[in-house]
C-alpha cells in the first residue's frame, strides 16, 4: 500500500517494499523474496540508525504520525472531553478531558494537531493561544481536586505567536499553566509524542515522569527559529537541529527526560498500533512506579526532578554566611 507522504529517506525503503510486493504477486520463489526481505530489513536498520537530528525532526513532524487524539482514542475508555477556559473561549489546539486508562480514572491534556488542512485551520496546527493553556490549567486543578492522575501528550511546534495571543497574555498563561502542574499532588506523566516545541510544549510537560518516543524531539526553540537568529536564514535549520541536541538520546543523556519509549523501526506512523501500545505500556509503568508516593511526596518528587536539571560549576549555596 502506497504511503501518502514520504520523507526523502523513506523513499528507497518504500520503493524496495513495492518491488518485493510486485515480485511476490508474480510468483517469485520464496527463497528469493526472503533475500530481498532481509536486505530491506538491513537497509532500514542502516538508514534509521544514521538519521541526522534534522531527519528526526522531520520524522516527528510527519503528517501521518499518530496524534494526541489517536492515543486518546485507543488508550482511553469513556473519554469525556472538557471544553473551555471559563473565561474567553475553547482553544481547539489543546484537548482536555477525563477518562479511564486500563481501569483507572485519569485526566488527560494534549496538543491537538490536525491531519487535513481544515482540521489544522481549526486547531491552529496544535499551537495554543492563552485560552488553551488556561483550559489545561483548569483541567490540572480539577484533577488535583478529585485525585486523578494526569497524563499529558505533547506535540506542538510551540505556542501561537500572534497579536491576539499577546493581547490575552500568552506569557502569563504559559507560566500559570506550568505553576498549576508544578503544584498538583497527583501523579503526572508527560509524553512527548511528536514535536516538543519550547515553552508551549513545557506548559504540559511538568511531569513526575517525562517520556519521549524514540523519534520524538524536544527543543528550547525550533531549529528554524534558532537558524534565523544565528545565521539569519531558516535554511540552516538542519545545522541548528544538530547543535540544539533535540533527539531522544541527547535529551536522555542531558537528564531532561526519564525514559525513551520504544517506537517502530521506521517511526510511529508506519505502525501506529504498535506505537500506541508502547506508549500505553509506558504510561502504565510510570503510573505504577509513582503509586507508592503520597500526595505531598508527589509534588516534592516533581520539584526535585526539575530542581536537578542544569549544568554549571562553582555551585555551593552561599546564602547562609
Amino acid at each position, binding site marked *: 500500500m502506497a504511503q501518502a507522504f514520504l520523507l526523502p529517506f523513506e523513499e528507497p525503503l518504500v520503493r524496495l517494499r513495492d518491488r518485493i510486493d510486485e515480485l511476490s504477486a508474480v510468483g517469485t520463489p520464496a527463497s528469493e523474496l526472503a533475500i530481498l526481505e532481509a536486505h530491506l530489513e538491513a537497509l532500514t536498520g542502516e538508514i534509521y540508525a544514521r538519521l541526522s537530528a534534522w531527519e528526526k525532526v522531520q520524522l516527528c513532524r510527519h503528517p501521518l504520525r499518530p496524534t494526541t487524539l489517536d492515543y486518546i482514542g485507543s488508550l482511553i475508555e469513556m473519554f469525556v472531553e472538557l471544553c473551555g477556559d471559563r473565561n474567553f473561549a475553547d482553544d481547539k489546539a489543546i484537548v482536555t478531558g477525563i477518562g479511564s486508562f486500563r481501569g483507572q480514572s485519569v485526566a488527560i491534556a494534549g496538543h491537538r494537531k490536525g491531519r487535513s488542512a481544515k482540521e489544522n485551520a481549526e486547531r491552529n496546527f496544535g499551537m495554543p493561544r492563552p485560552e488553551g493553556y488556561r483550559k489545561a490549567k483548569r483541567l490540572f486543578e480539577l484533577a488535583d481536586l478529585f485525585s486523578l492522575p494526569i497524563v499529558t501528550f505533547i506535540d506542538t511546534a510551540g*505556542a501561537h*505567536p*500572534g*497579536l491576539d*495571543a*499577546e*493581547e*490575552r*497574555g*500568552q*506569557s*502569563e498563561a*504559559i*507560566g*500559570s499553566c*506550568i*505553576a498549576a502542574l*508544578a*503544584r498538583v499532588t497527583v501523579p503526572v506523566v508527560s509524553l512527548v509524542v511528536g514535536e516538543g516545541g*519550547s*515553552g508551549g510544549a*513545557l506548559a504540559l*510537560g*511538568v511531569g513526575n515522569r517525562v517520556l519521549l518516543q524514540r523519534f520524538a524531539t*524536544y*527543543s*528550547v*526553540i525550533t531549529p528554524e*527559529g*534558532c537558524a534565523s*537568529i*544565528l*545565521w539569519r536564514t531558516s535554511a540552516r535549520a538542519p545545522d541548528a537541529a544538530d*547543535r*540544539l*541536541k*533535540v533527539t531522544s538520546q541527547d*535529551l536522555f543523556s*542531558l537528564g*531532561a527526560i526519564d525514559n525513551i519509549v520504544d517506537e517502530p523501526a521506521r517511526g510511529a506512523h508506519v505502525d501506529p498500533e504498535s506505537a500506541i501500545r508502547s506508549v500505553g505500556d509506558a504510561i502504565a509503568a510510570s503510573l505504577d512506579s509513582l503509586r507508592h508516593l503520597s500526595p505531598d511526596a508527589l509534588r516534592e518528587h*516533581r*520539584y526535585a526532578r*526539575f*530542581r536537578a*536539571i*542544569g*549544568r*554549571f*560549576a*562553582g*555551585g*555551593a*549555596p*552561599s*546564602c547562609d554566611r
Partner: protein
Amino acid sequence: MNPNPFKKCDGCGVILMATLFVHGVCPECEHHHSIGHKAWLDLLLDEGSFAAWDDKLTPTDPLNFVDDVAYPARLASAQKKTGLLDAIVSGRGNIEGRAVVYTASAFEFMGGSMGSVVGEVITRAFEHAVTHSLPIVLLSASGGARMQEGILSLMQMAKTVAARERLRDAKLPFISVLRHATFGGVAASFALQGDIHLAEPKALIGFAGPRVIEQTIGQTLPEGFQRSEFLVEHGMVDRIVHRHRLKGEIATILRLLGR
C-alpha cells in the same frame, strides 16, 4: 580613555551632558535608557546594604555549542564586558531599610538570557527568600531562554516557576519589575507570576518577538504593541513606574504588605 561627556537621547535625539541623564532617564523626554547591573543596584538598594549570594556559579558548555563563535568564547567576552559570570545578580539588600531578596537580570550579558546558571540562581533566590522569610524583588530583562544550552535552558522555566510557588505557599511577596525587554522563556515563566507587576515606561514585554509575529500574521503590528502601556491596557501589569520613583514605590508596597 576619556568617556564622551555628551549623550544623545534614543527617545528624542537631544544631545546633553551625560550626567544629566540621571539613572539613564532623559531630562527632556523621560526616555528610559538601559542601565547596567551596578546602576540598578545603586538605584534600588540602600547604600552598602547589598550582600551577593550564589555569585560563584559559572556557566559551562553542556552542548558543545558552536555557531560562528563557540559558546565558551561568547561567555568569556560577556564576562569580560560585564564583570559577571552570567546574566544575573542576586543577594540580600535593603530597600528603605526593609530587607529583601534582590535578584536582577543583567541584559548586557548575552541579552539577559536564561541558561542553567540564571535558572539556578533565580531558583535559589526564591528558596533563600523562603528560608530567611524575606520578600523578593525580581527585576527581569531578558530575550528568553538561552538557546546555547538547549533543553537545559527550557527546563529552567519549570524549575524557577516551581520555586516561585514555594514562595507563594510561604505567603511572602514577589514583586516583579519588568524592564526593557522581557520575552520568551523568562516572560513565560516567573516574570509574569509576581504578586505585583511593575513595569518601566515603554518597556517591550511579550512572549513572541514582534518580528516573529509579523512573519506569522503577515501584517505590520500596531504602534505601541507589547509596550508596558499595552500590557497595562490588557490587564497584565499593575503599574508603570518612572525609574526615579521605583524605589519609593516598592518600599511603599512592602510596607503595606506588612514587610
